């Protein structure tokens, strides 16, 4: 009986131990994949949400100035991605739509689209950095 209790206790401990070994990025990505944006979770005792930084930027007050600022910063990140030769298909498309929304005074829509463009551009730059460090691993030896 004691052995069963010990085994049960140990098995309950294991997931906790594994969870503590996960990095914040792993936990964030897992939570995001499971629950989408806007979900609250804790990591190392601290509260977080599954929102990307760009989505948090898009939560600012929907004004022309905020929309223009987000479009400008997204465009800068897209251009950086382009200069690296790693531009993805959609950021330019989203930015075009964001500018159209801005011209129609739809500030929240413009900010949401710019946030999507900026997120993807940031991910493409991260891809470039990751590939530079790891492409060699794919080569057969």
């Amino acid at each position, binding site marked *: 009986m004691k052995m069963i209790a010990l085994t049960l206790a140990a098995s309950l401990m294991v997931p906790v131990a594994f969870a503590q070994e996960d990095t914040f990025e792993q936990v964030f990505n897992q939570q995001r994949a499971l629950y989408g944006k806007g979900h609250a979770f804790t990591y190392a005792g601290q509260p977080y949400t599954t929102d990307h930084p760009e989505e948090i930027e898009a939560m600012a007050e929907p004004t022309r100035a905020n929309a223009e600022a987000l479009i400008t910063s997204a465009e800068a990140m897209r251009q950086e991605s382009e200069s690296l030769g*790693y*531009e993805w*298909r959609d950021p330019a498309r989203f930015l075009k739509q964001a500018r159209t929304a801005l011209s129609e005074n739809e500030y929240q829509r413009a900010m949401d689209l710019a946030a999507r463009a900026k997120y993807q551009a940031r991910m493409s730059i991260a*891809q470039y950095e990751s590939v530079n460090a790891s*492409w060699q691993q794919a*080569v057969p030896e």
Partner: protein
Amino acid sequence: MQKTKHSLLSVGFAVLSHAAVAAESGFTLETVDPDADRLALQAFYQQRFPGVPLEEYVNGIYAIDPDSRKQWDALMEFPPYEFDLEEGEELFNTPFANGQGYADCFENGGIGIRQKYPYWNREEGSVKTLEQEINECRVKNGEEPLPWKKGDLAKVSAYMAFTSRGKVFEIEIPADDSRALQAYLDGKEFFYSKRGQLNLSCANCHLKGSRIHVRADLPGPALGHPTHFPVVRSKWGEIGTLHRRYEGCYRDTRSVPLPPQADEFRKLEYFQTYMSNGLVVNGPGARK
């Protein structure tokens, strides 16, 4: 029995020696060894698809997927590129307005030279492709360059490839010009680098992904990729160039595609064709 053992040992040693040579290649100008890369790629496919002779890889997916092969064999009873080939020959032999022709721009009158392309041009410090030189020939003789992806350029290239059928690819990387080796290395890096929102490299689909379904499609092996271009693709419904396919693949990863004949694509072709050294030219071809 003794003889069989000896043969098996020989094969084993051959495989081991290939692996040993391949292991010496690297990822910098100082360490990269193109021949070791080529042997390692061959060894990869020999292990992945045992029993498929190396020379079969010029047939792409049809070398390694029996069901696709049956369909392709039926298709090839009346090769869909035959009219393009005839038109290509006619275009090739039609003089420009100034009386000169394509034959005047190329070694051996442009006949039987496909296996030497792409090559490293020392003077220009860049990789030159056959399609690039076809258009340069036109411009030099006062003609407009042709669109890169399809149409007449693909047809002329198809005819020139046809005159090289059966000739073995012999792409060279001049040892006395490190820029050539750098171009090869850049092409190698491009091939193995993930890109686009879908995070895919050429190698993802055409190395480990060979003959693994991507939706309803079966990607072909990278070994032998450039040997059969230009191709009539069923999806295109017409003949197209290798760089048209590169552009499409690139777009499929959800990247902003590079244009045909971009520096990166020419280096990729240099790397890929070097990997096919020893295989024969069998273009033009027909693919799904």
